[in-house]
């Protein structure tokens, strides 16, 4: 279990991680999703005690990393694939790590076998492909048989077979009751791997949600419709139970198909100037979510901060916007 409370990291005037709270539970794969520069790696480095928080705290199983009696037995991490001296062999790299934490030498060969590097154990790491480097990093993470695992962008540079392998491995580690915390900037990858989702943008937690919920909420089909009678059309769509977002004369109807929207308009003789269905991709949902946060972040200086710690804060933010529109429309009806 990893627990962060008010965790903050500032570099001069910039705040990389802004007073975030979260808990990563054992037995699940928790995806840590955010665009590049959102604060994922900084957060992970603070979990590992490598970077010192400017404020707040983060603990692993209730203990600050630096106070763990034998850290590699409790926490394994793949922080950067190439955090390895190129002139050393794969086996030597694992050997010094093992010695540093009193791990028996036979475990080195065990993890090499596990990640499929036995054949190149005595080769210098300099000659390794990016994928082999990732495998070696994963071997190092598993060395102490830890209950908590952190993976920073583990599928970077892996071929399709390697990606499936990492995905399967993480699922198995979680199934064994371990805490698995994995960062990525790829929503699609997270959707396949994670049970729980922590979305970060501009150093703030935008969503802390069950993956199934997130998919259910965001994979609904969406239709973009433009009409000179937008208000009238919106009212009728809302009456039929669909959520409608409105920007000027353009409506976005959530959960409906283009045919359904066209039928509603046709039944009442409303004109349509545009009608098309939008791809319901999680990637889009993620981009919308983080884009919202960027705008909101910039504007929030003058207004009261939103309650971002609430579960599914940001998706409901979008829903609320449409809800306001709906109220406005229904009030006018």
């Amino acid at each position, binding site marked *: 279990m990893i627990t962060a409370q008010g965790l903050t990291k500032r570099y001069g005037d910039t705040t990389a991680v802004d007073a975030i709270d979260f808990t990563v539970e054992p037995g699940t794969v928790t995806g840590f999703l955010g665009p590049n520069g959102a604060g994922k790696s900084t957060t992970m*480095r603070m979990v*590992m*005690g*490598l*970077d*010192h928080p400017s404020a707040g705290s983060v603990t692993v199983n209730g203990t600050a*990393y*630096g106070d*763990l*009696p*034998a*850290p*590699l*037995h*409790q*926490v394994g*991490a793949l*922080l*950067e694939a*190439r*955090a*390895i*001296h*190129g*002139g*050393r*062999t794969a086996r*030597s790299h694992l*050997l*010094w*790590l093992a*010695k*540093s*934490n*009193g*791990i*028996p030498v*036979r*475990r080195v060969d*065990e993890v090499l*076998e*596990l*990640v*499929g590097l036995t054949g190149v154990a005595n080769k210098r790491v300099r000659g390794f492909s990016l994928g082999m480097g990732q495998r070696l990093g994963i071997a*190092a993470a*598993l060395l*102490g*048989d830890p209950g908590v695992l952190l993976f920073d962008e583990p599928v970077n540079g892996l071929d399709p077979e390697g990606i499936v*392998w990492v995905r*399967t*491995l993480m699922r*198995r*580690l979680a199934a*064994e009751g371990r805490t698995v915390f994995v960062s990525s900037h790829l929503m699609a990858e997270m959707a396949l791997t994670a049970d729980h989702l922590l979305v970060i943008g501009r150093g703030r937690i935008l969503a802390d949600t069950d993956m199934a919920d997130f998919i259910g909420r965001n994979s609904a089909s969406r239709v973009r419709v433009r009409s000179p009678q937008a208000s009238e059309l919106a009212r009728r769509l809302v009456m039929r139970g669909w959520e409608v977002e409105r920007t000027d004369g353009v409506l976005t109807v959530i959960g409906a198909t283009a045919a359904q929207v066209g039928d509603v308009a046709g039944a009442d003789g409303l004109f349509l100037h545009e009608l098309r269905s939008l791809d319901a991709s999680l990637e889009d949902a993620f981009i919308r979510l983080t884009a919202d946060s960027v705008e909101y972040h910039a504007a929030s200086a003058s207004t009261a901060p939103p309650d971002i710690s609430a579960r599914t804060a940001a998706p409901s933010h979008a829903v609320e916007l449409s809800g306001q529109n709906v109220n406005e429309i229904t009030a006018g009806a």
Partner: protein
Amino acid sequence: MTTAILTHSPAIKRPQRLGFGNALSAEWIKLRTVRSTAWTLASLVLVSIGLTALMGWLAAAELATGEAGEPVGAFVTWGLMFGQIAAFVLGVLVASSEYASGMIRATLAATPRRWQVLGAKSVVLAGVLFVIGVVTSFGSYMASNYFLDRQGIGLALGDDGVLRALFGGGLYLAVLALFGLGLGLLMRHTAGAVAVGLALLFVVGNLVQLVPGALGEWLTKMMPGNAGSTIANVESYNPMLLDPWVGFAVFCGETLLLLAVAGWLFARRDA
């Protein structure tokens, strides 16, 4: 490849708490499992002994006439002047290469107590360089003495200052490597630390002699390279320098100060 068993391995027992021995053994493996260590140390030994032999061969006849005005004792470990650069560079690399490769993060994840990391690196480095320094000094002595003996001006091991200089070579290189470690940890950049260190130890140390008066004299005595190296020579070319043990104590103090500052920053900085 995914068939191996993941489930909690009964073979692994978690130690109560890691000790200094764990960090020490990890640092020892790190040092000996990169080729650059072997190359650096081999070059140190060979260049030092080789140059000492060459100088002995070239200078022995003139020294025997007594007209050279140079002390014979300054020649038996002469090549260490060049070999010492390798010791210093190795010290820098022990810290800076971890930053260059990003491996410092793996090191600190495994051993979060940063003073312990610095302590382990220091002990391993100093131990290795002491042994290498003593071996090199004895080798140099034997090589040059071969030529000096043929001119009848050889030095016996029992002669004044000889054994002190030969073991002193080990002490000097050990502390010099620690000086490099401190600078490498402070600057976290190989080229920068090597440039600053070489300038400080071997260039500025000579230049300050040009400062006039007592200040110049004092600065010359106190510069780390000047203060430290006298212990590795039977006799010094420069009679102005501090006595061997006094100079070595000054050099140790300076190195300790550098390590303390570097360690203090190391403990506070983000890795």
